[in-house]
């Protein structure tokens, strides 16, 4: 039997190396985080391979799902950026799917008794991962913005139609707002996944300690158990919503880069 000890809710975020590798002094070990990234990416590739293997005019179930996902992101991009945003579709689509799958895979319960390395791991619950994604987005925005608009990109910080005196106040505000974008993108996704999983494991821990307490307390254990089920349902909503929000904000920032000169 597995012990009913209430595991530390922080334990799930520990990064454990599975295969130790090093490149000079740099540690490039395959960790549980990297493993779940590979699993997520592999699942996306496999899914789309299966969905587009035999394309039909009347799509089957797999093909329909792929088409729904494609159209969802495609419409999102068209509504926020316009037709010029088409070239960013592969990036936004990849980003959306990757975050969605990473969030969802983190919600799969680990099989009891497995070694710690093989527990399910939410890659997006680490600030390093989400910050890397956010920096990628903001780097694309900056590079494309300057490449497309030249110095006109700087108009983003000085909106037109404002009394000149207001620029003293407005430019620093716009600058800070722009610089906080990658941080807010990264922290939103990270904190949502982090907080959700802590709450989930706290409820699960209550069940464990109540079961271990014995007597009438064992029966009360059903309350946090139902709570854990409710939180899991909420987490599925949050997982999808956060992937969507990340994609929407990426689109809005890309829109700024594409249409910076119109400001």
């Amino acid at each position, binding site marked *: 039997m597995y012990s009913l000890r209430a595991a530390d809710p922080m334990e799930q975020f520990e990064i454990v190396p599975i295969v130790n590798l090093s490149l000079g002094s740099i540690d490039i070990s395959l960790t549980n985080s990297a493993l779940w990234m590979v699993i997520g990416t592999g699942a996306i590739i496999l899914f789309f391979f299966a969905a587009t293997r035999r394309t039909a005019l009347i799509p089957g179930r797999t093909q329909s799902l792929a088409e729904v996902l494609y159209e969802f992101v495609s419409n999102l991009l068209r509504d926020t950026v316009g037709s010029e945003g088409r070239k960013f579709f592969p990036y936004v689509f990849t980003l959306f799917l990757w975050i969605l799958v990473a969030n969802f895979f983190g919600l799969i319960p680990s099989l009891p008794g497995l070694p710690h390395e093989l527990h399910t791991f939410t890659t997006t619950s680490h600030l390093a991962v989400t910050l890397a994604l956010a920096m990628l987005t903001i780097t694309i925005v900056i590079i494309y913005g300057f490449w497309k608009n030249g110095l006109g990109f700087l108009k983003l910080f000085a909106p037109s139609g404002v009394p000149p005196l207001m620029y003293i106040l407005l430019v620093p505000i716009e600058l800070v707002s722009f610089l906080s974008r990658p941080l*807010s993108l990264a*922290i*939103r996704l*990270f904190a949502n996944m982090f*907080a959700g999983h802590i709450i989930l494991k706290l409820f699960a821990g209550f069940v464990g300690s109540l079961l271990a307490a014995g007597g009438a307390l064992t029966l009360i254990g059903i309350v946090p158990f139902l709570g854990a089920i409710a939180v899991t349902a909420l987490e599925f909503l949050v997982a999808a919503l956060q992937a969507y*929000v990340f994609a929407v904000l990426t689109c809005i920032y890309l829109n700024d880069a594409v249409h910076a000169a119109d400001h």
Partner: protein
Amino acid sequence: MEVDAAKLIGAGLATIPLAGAGVGLGLIFGNFLTGAFRNPSAAAANQTTMLLGFALTEFTGLLGFTISILILLEIF
């Protein structure tokens, strides 16, 4: 001992932004619903804006949560 106590109090205080985020989220969804009931045909077009407001408001609360965790785990 006092330092530990101060840390715990500080971590607790850092969750106060959650109250503001709660009020803000309620305002966003409440006002969206008010508008959506008045003019249901315009609701779908404004959903993205609503979710954007939701994300930006939620961030204030999450920032408080992050700071609370930073204090608790003593990551500086």
